[in-house]
């Protein structure tokens, strides 16, 4: 795996992401500054990490989405390269047009920082092959704007094409209003683009990868990516 982690001013989860990637893939990811116009040669995974790029000014992710490096990410994605956006990274991918919809203010207005349960909807994608379909995993969230919204047609297409990969759920996997922590449409926690090579998700799998973190449920996502890229190589 040759991962590139994008770094924008105000991002603060890039080190967590780098640590998780190194731990699971055995390879040190490259840190790529937002003003770069290209990705390191041989990059096979681009990660847009979490944080508060540009202080969430204007709209979360709006300014980062227009950074020079994002043109390179668009080209990379257009060629089928794998892109993972977490938290602010999901917001940036939506703002950049790589994913549909938008992350609105949490329905109950509060910034929420605690563990949630996610149901893995399918296991036959690069981003979920480390899990079983229907498996429930526990990962942390930390966001104020994670309430996924899109027009009805977009939601219908996401659902129809099986592009919702992760959904907020109860500990036993039930989808209900109580577990839908931020009010997201259809309890959506993570979606992929039409081609299936760009994933955006609000929860932080990179923060549940070592025993000392109290849980290792996030490992499957990264282990799946490693397996996917090894298969492709």
């Amino acid at each position, binding site marked *: 795996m040759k991962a590139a982690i994008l770094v924008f001013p105000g991002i603060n989860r890039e080190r967590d992401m780098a640590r998780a990637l190194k731990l699971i893939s055995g390879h040190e990811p490259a840190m790529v500054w937002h003003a770069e116009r290209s990705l390191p040669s041989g990059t096979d995974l681009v990660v847009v990490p979490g944080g508060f790029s540009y202080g969430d000014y204007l*709209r979360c992710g*709006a300014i980062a989405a227009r950074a020079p490096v994002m043109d390179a990410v668009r080209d990379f994605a257009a060629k089928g390269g794998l892109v993972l956006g977490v938290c602010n990274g999901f917001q940036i991918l939506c*703002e950049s047009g790589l994913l549909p919809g*938008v992350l609105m203010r949490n*329905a109950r207005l509060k910034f929420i920082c605690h563990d949630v349960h996610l149901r893995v909807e399918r296991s036959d994608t690069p981003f979920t092959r480390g899990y079983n379909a229907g498996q429930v995993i526990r990962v942390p969230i930390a966001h104020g704007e994670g309430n996924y*919204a899109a027009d009805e047609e977009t939601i219908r297409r996401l659902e129809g094409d099986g592009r919702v990969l992760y959904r907020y759920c109860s500990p036993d996997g039930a989808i209900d209003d109580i577990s839908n922590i931020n009010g997201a449409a259809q309890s959506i926690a993570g979606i992929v683009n039409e081609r299936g090579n760009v994933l955006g998700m609000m929860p932080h799998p990179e923060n549940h990868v070592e025993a000392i973190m109290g849980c290792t449920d996030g490992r499957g996502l990264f282990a799946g990516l490693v397996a996917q890229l090894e298969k492709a190589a």
Partner: protein
Amino acid sequence: MKARVTVTLKTGILDPQGKAIEGALKSLGVDGVASVRQGKVFDIELSATDKARAEEALKAAADKLLANTVIENYRVELL
């Protein structure tokens, strides 16, 4: 030339911030508040002197950055 771009949420988009402000106004006893929707205002100074070109530039600014047209509408005014 001075201009103003006003960005507002589209009808039907839930606005929890507007709702919270609405609640606060009601609790302050401000009379007759039926509902509140929060938006953004950008005051922009342009070096252009041609009105048509200025409007074009402002529309580009709104489409490319100031508004997320998935959820927001915008209005451009030359002042």
